[in-house]
């Protein structure tokens, strides 16, 4: 099954070498920087985990086997967190290369859920896009 970065209810924005992901239903935010952002961007460019690991090894000159292991583990953690999903892969970008300086650092995401309780207290935002099921009219 292919992996996709297009996940319902997840907003993504890239700022230079940083990626911010926001689950707008539950109020949890994530920050990806460094190798973490590059892995997410590689998936968005429709590269496989193996292709991303190889590209990161080429860029940093670090040990390919340990990078492959770290990329796979991080991909699994993003999948578990709902930051990527199994499904139809994103459109493949013809050119993609990781932008990373220095040695490979084990990827991780920062998770911000400090707004969650505050937002969940507020009933205004909860309207879901589940349609508008009309009631059956009363016969009177």
């Amino acid at each position, binding site marked *: 099954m292919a992996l996709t970065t297009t996940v319902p209810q997840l*907003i993504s924005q890239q700022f230079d070498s940083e990626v911010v992901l926001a689950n*707008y239903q539950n*109020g949890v935010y994530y920050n990806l920087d460094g190798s973490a952002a590059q892995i997410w961007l590689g998936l968005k460019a429709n590269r496989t985990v193996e292709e991303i690991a190889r590209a990161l090894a080429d860029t940093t000159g670090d040990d390919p086997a340990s990078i492959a292991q770290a990329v796979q583990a991080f991909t699994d953690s993003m999948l578990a967190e709902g930051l990527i999903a199994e499904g139809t892969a994103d459109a493949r970008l013809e050119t993609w290369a990781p932008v990373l300086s220095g040695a490979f650092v084990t990827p991780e995401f920062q998770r911000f859920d400090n707004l969650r309780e505050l937002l969940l207290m507020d009933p*205004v935002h909860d*309207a879901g*896009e*589940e349609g*508008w099921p009309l009631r059956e*009219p009363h016969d009177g």
Partner: protein
Amino acid sequence: MTPARKAGRCASLMTASHRIRQEIAAVFASSEVPIEAQARCGPFGLRLGFASRELADTFLPAYIQSAPETVDLDLRFITGDHHDLSGLVPEAAEKPRLLIEDGIYSVWQPAVIPVLFAIDLTAKRGIAWLPTGEAPPWIRSRPAISLIHALMHETPWCAVHGAAVGSRAGFTLLAGEGHSGKTTAALACAKAGWRYAGDDFVAVDSQSGRIEPLFCSARLRPALVETFRNFIGKTSAVSDFNGEPRHELSLADLGDRIGGGRLRATFIPRRRGAVTPAFTPARQSDAFRALLPTTAYELPGWPNEIADKVARIAGLAPVFFADTGTQPMEIPAAFAHQLDRL
């Protein structure tokens, strides 16, 4: 089959958007509107109609009343006593709902006090229906903002969660979650003679950086009343939702000082123990994280469009964390100094 039953059957075959469009038209066709007003709200001109004096007293103080050149939205505030729109309430009425279909945008917010907002974007007519006649406190300072959000769809404008104030050096957008000090900073600047565009939600053009006020309201925590006593005049009613009491203020008396201007910097207020206001450079992504959550949560629909606009707004001007210090009245001079340095 009785005519009523036949009509009911026909109604059940209609789409929800068709039914909502019909009911909006019926509201505008059927009744006199005892209280009318005109207002500007961000880049839009509004014609407002209130079905009762009580409704006008509740909502009109938040609006910037003026005669706009064009009317972009005809908006009626009605209650269950004036119109029975219960047929529009969706099944499983305890759940909030959003409908975007065929030029109709509608939000059902049941919560503790239910409200239905709906707009026919083609006819430029909207309704705020309060079934019980009561208005939830959290919508008094920003009435029907979700309908303004719908009007902004496919325009560069975005209603963003933040405060904004401006001096001759330009406007600053104050971004951050609740309790971060946005209202304190905005009111301190307004008291010092700055232009005021809002303390909660403001309209920002994500292409040009133009800021416009949506409302002339402010929501002040009781602990700050003494600080601004001379400025706000008599103490207003306090709303209390989930243990968060707020004075719902109208700053309409500021007159021409309720206004907008060009974004010069985004400040992210925070309290980190500085005695006097201090600034630290921040990133575009920090502004994005500060602006997006409440913006996306409180404005149902088109979340990715909101995120794109907010990301652009976050990149329009330099971003700083602003530790606002312990003396609110020192904030305006510090803000002015920081803006002048840019």
